[in-house]
C-alpha cells in the first residue's frame, strides 16, 4: 500500500492504480472529471505534487499511476473564453484569428503552457505559429490536443491556447487546404446517379441472392 493525498486528504491505496482508480478505491464517486477513460477526452485534467519537490505537475487522471507520497486534485473544468464563428464564413482566415482572439499575439514566451501540457504538446510554439499565420504548423504541433484547458490555467497572457489552436487547425483544413480531389470525384458520380440503380437492385434481391452476390471478396 502507498500513501496518497486526494483533494488534500490522506489515503492508503494499492500500487498500480491510476488516479481515477485510486479515487474509486477510496470510495469517491467521480462524475465531473471523468469521460472516456482512454486518455483522449480531456475531462480528467489533474494537478499533483510529489514530496520534496517544489514543482507542480499536471496529468490526465485516467492515464497516470499514483506514486508514494503523491498529492493530487482533479480540475474537472477550467472556465475558458471561446469565440463564436462559422469557419466557412470568415472573410479572411488569417485576420480572423486576431478578430476572434486578439490576445493571441501577446505571448510573453514564458513557456508555462508547454510545461503544463499533459499531452506533451509544444503549446508555446503553436501559439507563435498561429500568430505568424502558419496554421499548417499549428495543425501538426497540436494534433494530440485533448482540449483539457490546463494551458489556460497557466497562461500569463490570459490566452486559451487550445481554442486558438482549434481555430487555426480548422482554418487550415477548411480554408487553406484544397478540397480533396478523390472525394470531389466520388461525390460527382454519386450526384450523377451512377450507383443508384445497382444499389436499388441489391436491396431488392432475396436474402439468398444477396448473399451469393456479396459472398466473394
Amino acid at each position: 500500500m502507498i500513501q496518497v493525498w486526494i483533494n488534500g486528504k490522506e489515503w492508503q491505496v494499492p500500487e498500480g492504480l491510476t488516479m481515477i482508480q485510486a479515487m474509486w478505491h477510496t470510495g469517491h464517486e467521480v462524475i465531473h472529471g471523468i469521460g472516456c477513460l482512454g486518455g483522449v477526452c480531456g475531462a480528467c485534467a489533474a494537478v499533483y505534487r510529489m514530496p520534496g519537490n517544489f514543482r507542480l505537475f499536471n496529468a490526465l487522471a485516467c492515464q497516470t499511476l499514483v506514486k508514494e507520497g503523491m498529492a493530487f486534485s482533479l480540475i474537472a473544468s477550467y472556465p475558458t473564453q471561446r469565440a463564436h464563428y462559422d469557419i466557412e464564413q470568415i472573410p479572411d482566415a488569417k485576420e480572423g484569428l486576431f478578430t476572434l482572439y486578439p490576445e493571441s499575439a501577446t505571448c510573453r514566451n514564458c513557456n508555462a503552457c508547454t510545461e503544463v501540457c499533459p499531452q506533451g504538446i509544444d503549446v508555446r510554439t503553436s501559439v507563435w505559429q498561429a500568430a505568424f499565420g502558419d496554421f499548417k504548423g499549428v495543425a501538426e504541433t497540436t494534433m494530440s490536443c485533448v482540449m483539457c484547458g490546463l494551458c489556460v490555467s497557466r497562461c500569463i497572457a490570459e490566452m486559451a491556447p487550445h481554442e486558438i489552436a482549434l481555430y487555426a487547425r480548422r482554418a487550415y483544413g477548411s480554408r487553406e487546404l484544397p478540397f480533396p480531389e478523390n472525394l470531389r470525384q466520388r461525390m460527382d458520380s454519386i450526384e450523377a446517379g451512377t450507383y443508384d440503380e445497382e444499389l436499388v437492385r441489391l436491396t431488392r434481391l432475396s436474402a439468398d441472392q444477396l448473399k451469393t452476390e456479396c459472398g466473394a471478396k
Partner: protein
Amino acid sequence: MTVENPSSLNPYDNLPAFDPGEPGSFSPEEREELLRRYYPDYRPDRKATLHVGPNKGEVLPDEVASILESRSILATEGLPAVPSSPDIEVDLLVIGGGGAGIMASIFAQEAGARVLMATKLRVGDSNTVMAEGGIQVALGEDDSPVQHFKDAYRGGHFTGDPELLSVLVREGPEVISWLVKKGVLFDRDPSGNLSLRKGGGTSRPRLISAKDYTGLEVVRVLKEDLLNSGVNIWEFSPAVELLQGPEGSCAGAVLRDVDNGSLKWVKANAVLLATGGAGRLHIGDFATSNHFGATGDGLVMAYRMGARLLNMESFQYHPTGVIYPSEMAGMLITEAVRGAGARMFNRDGKRFVQELETRDVVAASIIRECEEGRGVRTPSGHHGVYLDLTSIDREMGEGTVERRFPNIVKLMGKHQVDCTKQPILVYPTLHYQNGGIASDTSGHTQVEGLYVAGEASGGVHGKNRLMGNSLLEVFVYGRRVGVDAAREAMSRKPFSWHEVNLGHVDRFQRDLEKEFPGTSRPEAPILFPDYRKHPHPARS
C-alpha cells in the same frame, strides 16, 4: 474469461522468438466452428431468456437481460406524479452528446426546430471521441459505394439491413465532405487526396483517418460548432425515463440533474435517442474500450415504451484490447495497426490467425489460444497474446509506428511499454453493440415520436461490424435522422401536457411483477458504472 491466481511474473520476461510464418486461412466451416465454440455471442453460458417486453422469448447476455427487465429508477418509492407543467417544451429532444447526438442537433437546429440536447456527461464524452482507426468511405478508383455495400453486408455475416446499408454507403461521401469543409483534418496523400487505408474484412483500402486520433479530431470540430449553433444544451442531465403521449406515442422525457438530483420534465414533439452503446455492462466480465457512460440507457427506456430491439445478442469484442499492464485493461489498440502489418503471436511465438480476418474471427482465435493454454499469463492471472508492431517499422520503414500511431505510442509509453520495440499484450475487449433499437432509414422506431441514431440503433451492421462503418453511421444517420425528426416534430399534431404520463412504465412494471413474482428486479438505466464496489474487470 478465465482467471488464475495472481503472480509476480512479468510477461515481458522470457519473450519467445517470433516466427513470422503465416498461418493458413479458415474454410467457411472452420470459421463457423471457431465462432460457435469461442466467440462470446454464440456460447450458451451466461445467457437469459426475456420474459417481458417486445423481444420476449429472445435469449440475450445476462447483463443485457438484466437492464431490459428492470424497474424504473423513478419508482423506488412509487412513480412520481407528472407536474402541472413541463420545465421546457421543444420540438426535438436529443438524448446523448456523442457523434450522432451532435450531428442530429446541429442539423435539426438548422432545419428550424427548437432543439434541446441533454447529455449525461459533457458534450463529446462518448465512444465517438475515442475512435482511433478511421471512417470507411469508398473513394478509391477501383472502389464504389456498391463495393462498400457488399463488403459491409458480407462482413455482417449477411444479417445487416440492406436498406439501411445502401443509405450509409450512398450518403457517406457527402457527409465526409461536410466534415472536411468544417475543417476536420483527415490525413492526405502527397497529391492532396484523402489517404485510404486497409481495414479488416474489406476488399479495398477505404479507411480515412486522422492518424490514430480520428474521433478526437472530428469531435473537437463538431463540439465547437454545436456550442456555436444556438442549440440548448443541458450537460450532466441524463434521461431516466421517456414520457408517453397520445396513443402510446413518445412525448418527451424525464431528465435528472446529477448535481442536485432534481428531475426535469421535457415536453417534446420528437425524442431522438443517441445514447450510444453498452460496454460498461462488462458482459461476460470482459474489460471494455467504451467511455464511462456507455451503459445502454436508451435501450432500457425504449424497451419499456414498446420499441423492438434487433440483434441484441450480438456484441463486438474487439480482438486487441490491452490486457497488461492491468490498469490499462480494455484500452483499444486500433485494428489499423494490423492493417499496417502488425502481427499476433501466442506464447510459443507462433502466429495463429491471419490478422485481417473479420474482428469476430480474430477475437475468437485469441480466446481459443488462451483457453487451450497457448496464451501469455499476466501477473493478475489473466491471459493474452502478443501484438507486435515492430514488423510495421521493419516493413514500412523506421518511424512509421510513431508517425501513424502517435496516440498508442504515447499511451503505452506512459505505462512503460515502448510498443515501437516491444509487443503489446492483448485480449478481446467489449467494444461495440452490434444490435440496438430497430429503426428505418429515417430513424423511426416502432414508437411514434421516438427516433434513434448511432450505436444505440441496430440493423446497419447486422451481427458483426467492420471497422470504420460505425463512425460513418454516426455521421450519416446523425445528420439524416436529425433532419427527418426535426421536420416531423415541427408538423406533429399538437397535444396537451395533460395527455402526458408515465403509463408505459407502470404497465411494464406490472408485467414484470407477473413474470417474476416475489423477486426484486434491478433498477435501470444504470447511468454510471460503480467501480467503488466492483473493481474494473480484468484488473486484479
